[in-house]
């Protein structure tokens, strides 16, 4: 009997052994199931097509959306793509965009932060009360405002991670509680104007009038981008790994260069152009740093891991509590920082700064930009793309003289469309075998 049972088992092994052994001499070729990208540019195109068919749309829908928005509004009103309008979009994008970066962090964890609007209000109030009312050093007041944001975020993270209260509830409580604190702090004045020449005033009020600033930044960005791609490609070749073909690097660099220099030109050259806005520089700096942290550091990898499978992350030795608390702290920090931008734009801190649709716009930006609501998938740059979509729509509708109620409805429809695209692409990914 033992021979009887052993025999088939032995045979089965032999049959599975044989094809494996036959495969090994030429490992790179044969198996059609292997997703080996062909070298060269056609390989890149085929890979791109395969991804789109498989539902990995990435930033494609947003970029198409932005182009459509630009064309539609430009046809309706020729001043949409004017220097003034573009500069406006850039400046208005930055404050909310910085807050959206914080939301992207939280969404990567698969959580939500509903308190960012109130935290922005508290940040602005802290700065205004300290600096304007009580004469504290301007820089110190800015620093304290940001630290207050970090402290608030840490508190949210503590209740969520350690106590186990759902983040939705913690931050909803925060949303109410912190706006109460904001109104209480602003109590005597109701609104505090930003003094001219203060740090906060120049956040969105300062422009680099020297044309070299805009072009220089564009040049540095393009060189850094091309350099990092080339270096990466060279190292991958040295390690005998598949690398980007030179044609792809050139194409990517070309696109980035085109965008960078067109924006720099529009900000610098036409009549009425004021130069490169400081707000845009700060926003780009936040984006670059956050993107680096998320994609290239262990900490960022751990955020993705916790967002994907917290239990697996815990078993891999990751301190899940620490990651969760720190991510909420980052969200609070960026919310307070963004609040200072809003105060700067609206000319001062008020009782209701950050209320209304601020929160919704910020979350909508992150989602429209392509960061999944379900955790573990997304890019920092989606904060920029999504915010550009929202601000372009608002700017365009303003130019057309549309009332704000129409703006709300259109922004709502765009948000719904973005989430529909996210859900449909997830379903396509499922049918293509990728959840």
């Amino acid at each position: 009997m033992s021979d009887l049972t052993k025999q088939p088992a032995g045979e089965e092994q032999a049959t599975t052994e044989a094809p494996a052994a036959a495969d090994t001499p030429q490992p790179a070729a044969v198996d059609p199931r292997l997703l080996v990208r062909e070298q060269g540019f056609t390989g890149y195109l085929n890979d791109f097509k395969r991804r789109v068919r498989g539902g990995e749309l990435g930033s494609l829908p947003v970029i198409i959306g932005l182009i459509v928005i630009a064309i539609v509004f430009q046809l309706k009103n020729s001043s949409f793509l004017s220097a003034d309008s573009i500069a406006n979009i850039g400046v208005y994008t930055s404050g909310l965009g910085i807050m959206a970066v914080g939301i992207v962090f939280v969404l990567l964890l698969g959580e939500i932060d509903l308190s960012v609007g109130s935290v922005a209000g508290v940040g602005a109030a802290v700065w205004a009360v300290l600096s304007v009312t009580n004469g504290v050093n301007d820089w110190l007041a800015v620093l304290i405002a940001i630290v207050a944001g970090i402290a608030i975020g840490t508190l949210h993270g503590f209740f969520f991670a350690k106590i186990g209260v759902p983040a939705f509830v913690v931050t909803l409580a925060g949303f109410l509680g912190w706006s109460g604190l904001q109104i209480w702090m602003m109590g005597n004045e109701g609104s505090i104007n930003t003094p001219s020449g203060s740090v906060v005033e120049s956040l969105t009020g300062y422009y680099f009038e020297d044309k070299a600033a805009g072009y220089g930044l564009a040049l540095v960005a393009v060189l850094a981008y091309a350099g990092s791609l080339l270096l990466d490609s060279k190292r991958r070749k040295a390690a005998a790994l598949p690398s980007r073909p030179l044609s792809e690097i050139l194409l990517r660099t070309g696109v980035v260069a085109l965008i960078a220099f067109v924006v720099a030109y529009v900000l610098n050259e036409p009549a009425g152009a004021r130069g490169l806005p400081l707000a845009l520089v700060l926003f780009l700096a936040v984006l670059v740093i956050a993107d680096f942290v998320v994609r290239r550091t262990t900490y960022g990898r751990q955020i993705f891991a916790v967002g994907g499978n917290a239990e697996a992350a815990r078993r891999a030795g990751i301190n899940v509590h620490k990651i969760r608390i720190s991510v909420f702290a980052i969200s609070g920090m960026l919310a307070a920082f963004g609040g200072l931008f809003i105060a700067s734009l609206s000319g001062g801190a008020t009782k209701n700064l950050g209320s209304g649709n601020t929160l919704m716009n910020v979350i909508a930006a992150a989602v429209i930009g392509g960061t999944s609501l379900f955790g573990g998938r997304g890019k920092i740059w989606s904060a920029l793309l999504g915010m550009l979509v929202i601000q372009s729509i608002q700017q365009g509708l303003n130019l057309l003289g549309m009332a704000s109620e129409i703006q709300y409805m259109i922004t709502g429809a765009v948000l719904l469309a973005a989430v529909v695209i996210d859900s449909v692409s997830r379903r396509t990914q499922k049918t293509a075998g990728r959840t």
Partner: protein
Amino acid sequence: MSATPVLALRGISKRFGAVQALTDVTLEIHPGEVVALVGDNGAGKSTLVKTISGVHPVDDGAIEWEGRTVGINKPHDAQELGVATVYQDLALCDNLDVVANLYLGSEIRTAGVLDEIAMEKRAKELLDTLSIRIPSVRIPVAALSGGQRQVVAIARALIGDPKVVILDEPTAALGVEQTAQVLDLVERLRERGLGVILISHNMADVQAVADRVAVLRLGRNNGVFDVEGTSHEEIIAAITGASDNAVTRRKARTNQVKKEAGA
């Protein structure tokens, strides 16, 4: 097979309150050996594995690592010694790609920055030496089949260069071909000189790859068998605790003639 076992359990006992989960259990694992750990539900297999992997410290008895007595009180101790455990639920992050999963918790860094290229290169080398075929090391684990996920989870256990690998039901829920692939991989672990503890309910798998079978019954040793020259029935008898039981009675009833011929 070398004379000193890489891991030896001597007289291990473990209580949970009033429940005596393990009583005086002895087990030896040699390098380059696959030991199947079998037993009915509740026999103490999982508890035994958890004492080795440091989840539950033992109450009584000694654990010897390469001949010297060691204490394993937390999972970290086990990892330090070189014990890697692949749990049944795999614990992979679906949203991360294969490379990121392999190195999760032990990323390679140069100057504080993730060294993706070094990780990808080494991941490829590791998968090649194990003859693991997956579509690409840069696709999310969610896109892999059940068998591919299992081999990735096993490969992940090998990143820290362990000496003993514990596999908890690696072939449960796998199809025929995928099971064969995982069993191939278990044999490759043995060829690399690793000691493998394989928990399985599937006797065909056990007989296909294991060198020895250790049977637990009600928290006690109930025999260690060499797979060569031990019949299916003997192992089943040891698992269920008697040669006279529902399984053998049924066999005897339905297959009497054949059984006599085989014996």
